[in-house]
Each structure stands twice: as C-alpha cells, then as structure tokens.
C-alpha cells in the first residue's frame, strides 16, 4: 500500500545550525513528492516538490530536499535554521492511482522547534 512515514514527531535544533526533517515513502511506481509547512491557525503552505530530474530540489524560504530512490527517502533540509522556521512540516506523495491529479497522501507531520 502507498504510504508516507515521518519517523520523528519533533525535531529540535539551535538557530543557525543545519536542520533535517526525515521522510520515507512507499509507492510501486515513480513517486511525486511534496513538502508542506503549517503554521498555527493557518493552512498548509507549499515548500517544494520532486517530480523528475535533479535529485536535489530547492524550494521556498531556503529549504531544499534530496530525493533518494534507493532509500525511498525525501528528507527536507536547510543549511541554517531560523527561529521563524518553527512549525509543523508535512511530507506527501501523490496517489499513483489518482488518474493524473494531485490526490495527496500525507505523513503524520513533524514539529520543528528552532531554539534561539
């Protein structure tokens, strides 16, 4: 069955340090992968996506993600964390049987806390 796993409920990092939020996926075909961020009382905001091409994808707010097919992972990274990056992060994969539209399967989310 298709699924997305975010193995960490929470990630703590000091401001200025690099951050990684982990995501692994399970699909039978080629994955379409997404990262979204959710701030309190606000909707999800798109950060970046991988469809095909370069395994390193750059997105909004200085975030990037690395697609690793052999490890079925799509970890979110940022070289230098900001306190304002503190939020809830969701990894998602497009349902490969959705007929061409982006019916998304989300992970449970990882709370990122960046400390001053």
């Amino acid at each position, binding site marked *: 069955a298709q699924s997305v796993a975010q193995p960490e409920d929470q990630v703590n990092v000091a401001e200025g340090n690099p951050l990684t939020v982990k995501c692994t996926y399970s699909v039978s075909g080629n994955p379409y992968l997404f990262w*979204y961020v959710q701030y309190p009382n606000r*909707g999800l905001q798109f950060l970046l996506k991988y469809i095909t091409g370069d395994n390193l994808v750059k997105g909004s707010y200085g975030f990037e993600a690395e697609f690793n097919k052999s490890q079925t992972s799509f970890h979110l990274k940022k070289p230098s964390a900001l306190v304002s990056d503190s939020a809830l992060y969701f990894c998602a994969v497009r349902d490969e049987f959705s*007929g061409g539209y982006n019916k998304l399967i989300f992970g*449970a989310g990882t709370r990122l806390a960046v400390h001053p």
Partner: protein
Amino acid sequence: GAGVSQSPRYKVAKRGQDVALRCDPISGHVSLFWYQQALGQGPEFLTYFQNEAQLDKSGLPSDRFFAERPEGSVSTLKIQRTQQEDSAVYLCASSLRTNEQFFGPGTRLTVL
C-alpha cells in the same frame, strides 16, 4: 491576490446536527480538494472536483458526507447528523490542474 478562503473558521455542533462548510478557491483554479485533518494527524483526502464535476469521492467516510461545486467555483462540504468522530479540521485546497495545491486556513469542527 486573495488566497483560498473557508468559512466558518470554527463551528461547534451538537451531535445529530447538520453542518455546511464553505470553500472559496482561488479564482480560475480548476481543481478543488477537500481534506480532513484529525488532531495530531496529517490531512486525509476526502474528495476532488475538476470544475463542477466530482471526479473522486473515495475518501468520504460515510454517506453522511456530501460535497458539491455546482458552478465550478465555490464548494460546500455538508455533513449530516454529525457525530463526535467527525470533529476535525476540514481543509480545502485549489490548484491549476496538476500544479501544487494552495490550502485554505481550514474550518475547525467540534461536535459535542
């Protein structure tokens, strides 16, 4: 420009009441999605519209849930005879066909 808006932002219903949740997508967006987000969980797909056509309703949990988008713009998610397990945040998202989705702020439904 305006993003996706949803109303009401908060709704409290007594068990057994019917509720209607509204979504105003970004103008011109063909695709519209509804998701349900339970506390501490990621969003789960409910249904998908392409213009006024409901192409996928596989995620609707029961026949108490009904969604419509009669003119291909505003959409309404209706829940009949609400139950406590319906308590969740209901998210609406729109997009230009297969592009990334833009999400609204959600409607938090609490069923007492």
